[in-house]
């Protein structure tokens, strides 16, 4: 599909899509579960903003959850940046012993973690962002099973982030002044209608479809 067609599709779909807040809740629930399962101090999802080439905190559980959401950093800096660019997950421990790293992370997260796990969020060949889990307790050495678990959470977060992205595209198409925006508004209005008005609206659209059908 062309970009226009994608936008049209997204706009029409917006009428039945959940609100952006629902997906933000979904992202938040992913980081909350990740934090709980790993027994970690904090967990966060960073969304890659293509326009500004930055990573943005989209959901945070634990330390920093009040202050971090919305904070931005360049997309190729730090561990999160490397994980995004290399598309490879990474687990680091004892990182607090490195003053440069500690300062770097502290500036972004508000505290100095001793360890972090990070995985890229991949969907449809795109890297959408990064999942981070900070300060997993050192009850045992890190295991391959935990790495797999991190990958599973990352997959779930990638799906949620993908949904959030398409909702945002849909909303942009709906709110926009482009030619297709009217179709999106129509679809949204129609889904809100009930009873005879809805039936009339649908009948009218069916006639319009007939009129526009290529010979």
């Amino acid at each position: 599909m062309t970009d226009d067609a994608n936008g049209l599709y997204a706009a029409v779909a917006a009428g039945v899509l959940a609100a952006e807040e629902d997906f933000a809740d979904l992202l938040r629930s992913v980081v909350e579960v990740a934090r709980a399962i790993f027994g970690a101090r904090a967990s966060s999802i960073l969304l890659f903003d293509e326009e500004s080439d930055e990573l943005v905190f989209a959901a945070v559980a634990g330390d920093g959850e009040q202050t971090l959401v919305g904070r931005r950093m360049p997309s190729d800096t730090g561990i999160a940046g490397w994980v995004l660019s290399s598309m490879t997950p990474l687990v680091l421990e004892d990182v607090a012993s490195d003053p440069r790293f500690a300062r770097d992370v502290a500036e972004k997260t508000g505290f100095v973690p001793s360890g972090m796990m990070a995985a890229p969020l991949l969907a449809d060949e795109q890297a959408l962002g990064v999942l981070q889990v900070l300060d997993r307790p050192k009850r045992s050495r890190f295991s391959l099973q935990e790495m797999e678990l991190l990958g599973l959470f990352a997959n779930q977060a990638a799906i949620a982030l993908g949904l959030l992205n398409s909702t945002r595209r849909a909303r942009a198409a709906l709110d926009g002044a482009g030619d297709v925006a009217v179709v999106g508004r129509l679809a949204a209005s129609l889904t809100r209608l009930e009873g005879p008005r809805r039936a009339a609206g649908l009948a009218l659209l069916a006639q319009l479809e007939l009129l526009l059908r290529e010979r």
Partner: protein
Amino acid sequence: MAEPEPEPDDDLYELPAWSLSREAGDFIRIANPLPERVDREWALGGSTGKGVRVCILDSGVENGHPLVGPVTRAVAISVGENEEPVATDDLEGDLCGHGTACASVVHALAPEAEIHSVRVLGAGFSGSGRALIAGLRWAVEEGYDVINMSLSTTKPKFAEALHELADQAYFNRTVVVASAHNMPVESLPWRFSSVISVASHDEDDPFVFYANPEPPVEFFARGVDVQIGWIGGGSIRATGNSFATPCIAGIAALILGKHPGLTPFQVKTVLYLISTNVGGADA
């Protein structure tokens, strides 16, 4: 002691590339460099990786790090107008620690191998795929003996270029060692048969490595809870296929330090033969 290696015959490459006459067959006799029994002592016993140039294609490498030693050359790669690689001397060191980590794993195994850093990060994520291709192109043209790639891309539009470069490296006697992906996604270049792909096992010994009977991942090396060098002269513990990959790159450097003429195909064969689950445990 190493047996004398046959010198590569330069005249060989002047033969027609696409055909071979019956008479010419006699002129391209090649002495088999591999003994009847390839074991670890033959493959890498006494080797320090001396004379081998290992390229770390990554985030840069911290020069003079205690666990890395001197970096022979460091360049930063940007992408030119015609997608050509543009290399400039890299004075930034390591942007995140990852390249230094990979270099430290190679250095621990092959302490006399030369470490070269080719930095492909630093132009924003949006340009990272193109920079990766440009960096690999530059490194392949530079003719390194081993290229460590603890990174991959999931973008299909880069597949053709990556495939060509992996083949070019293979025919130019550059061993490309690439991290396998441990997430359920399609990524490159590790899936190509012209490179050596590596994933992690969770044992502590860097010389324990396994050949995978079910590729595309070809080898498993130490990648869990590894002590590695990090920026600022420090060290941390880390987990990831990123660190299993330089383990195999380091062992490849040891093999090439002792047997400089081996082709990537032969290096992979030797790695297979001395793998812990093949013949390595007997050595």
